[in-house]
């Protein structure tokens, strides 16, 4: 049997202790070991952005990290934003502006946008496009996503 590593990780505020093979990708760990299947896997080579999660508040590709590397860190996935009954303002904005179609790329976009709006609460359209450059979407042509981010920024500014 290959060597496994014991790791402690906090995901969406919950602490988990698990034993993993070092080669286990963080994306697979979140989805299959922790059952947090909201994080999606689209390319596994770091281009599509569907697997983006926040590590210590910063957006990262979970397919380009090994789970062991998240030992001792805090991860936020889409499940850590709002709930179905109480959507996070970003999620609300995405529904209102129709910022998603098939919804597959959406979790990675929501986490990316969360970090982005925390750093830049009043972004221009160009800055939004820049911020989303690492998240591919095949359905929307991005326009409604951009409008959703503008709306979310407005909601979060209050």
């Amino acid at each position, binding site marked *: 049997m290959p060597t496994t590593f014991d790791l402690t990780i906090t995901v969406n505020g919950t602490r988990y202790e698990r034993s993993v093979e070092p080669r286990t990708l963080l994306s697979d760990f979140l989805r299959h070991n922790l059952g947090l299947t909201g994080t999606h896997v689209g390319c596994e080579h770091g281009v599509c952005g569907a697997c983006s999660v926040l590590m210590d508040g*910063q957006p*990262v*590709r979970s397919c*380009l*990290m090994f789970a062991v590397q998240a030992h001792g860190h805090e991860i936020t996935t889409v499940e850590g934003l709002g709930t179905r009954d109480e959507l996070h303002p970003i999620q609300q904005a995405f529904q209102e502006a129709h910022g998603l179609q098939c919804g597959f790329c959406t979790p990675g976009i929501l986490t*990316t946008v969360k970090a982005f709006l925390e750093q830049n609460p009043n972004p221009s359209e160009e800055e939004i496009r820049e911020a989303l450059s*690492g998240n591919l979407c095949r359905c929307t042509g991005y326009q409604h996503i951009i409008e959703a981010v503008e709306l979310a920024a407005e909601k979060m500014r209050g």
Partner: protein
Amino acid sequence: MKPAPFEYFAPASTDEALSLLAEHGYDAKVLAGGQSLIPMMNFRLVQPSILVDLNNIAELAYIREGDDGGLRIGAMTRHRQVETSPLAAERAPLIHVAMSKIAYPQVRTRGTFGGSVSHADPSAELPALSLALGGKFRLRSQRGERWVAAEDFFVSLFTTVLEPDELLVEASIPPMPPRSGWSLQEVARRPHDFALMGVAAVVTLNEKGVCDGARLVFISAGDRPIAAERAAESLKGQAPSSKVMEEAAEIASMQEIDPSSDIHATAEFRRHLANVLTRRALEQAFQRAAETKQEG
């Protein structure tokens, strides 16, 4: 697309990392940000038997002012840290502006300065910019420490002078001389892709407004960052004019670079772009140099 198995070490100090490298040599692969290495591992193009992960080495992540007034950047400094560093913006604006061109936000939060330089991808910005700014790198192994100038560091595709037991621990970027200007010009299919062609120009004017020195370094123009020395030399002693810039562009694009053909661009198109971008880069760099002259 799942990586093959490997043995994993996550040393907490540089010394510990060096001892692991000394022990495992060629079999060990260093994992810095992993934004180039892990995709290759996922494709199983790379199957290292041992990974030495530097991400727990806090002492390697810093941006400091150098004794020479330039910048000292620890190997494990994330691109994002450089991108948001006022010190970097002030001391090495060329590097600072390049940061937003490196891949995507999510990659920049992981990718590291030392990792990018050590990976020595001829299409990457940081190797070329380090060279354009006359930077040097501090390499350490259990055998000792050495400084290597950027111009001596890059050997060929993905290959540097780093020995298997050696680690790049720090980059030193000197300040530009007074009356210097710079420019980074790139053409990429999409803004965040590897550039089809790119050029970094750093020029210095003397008090009379004549070019005192220039550096032109090309991205995606050969098997390593390519410095166009003869083109730079041709500018020396000249007052900037479109004629001298065109001549320099011609020399660099036709004689000095050695671009490849791939599915995105033929070597011929790359040379054409190099010519166009060199002229644009020199124009902007001289413009900036002239402005600093007025300020100074």
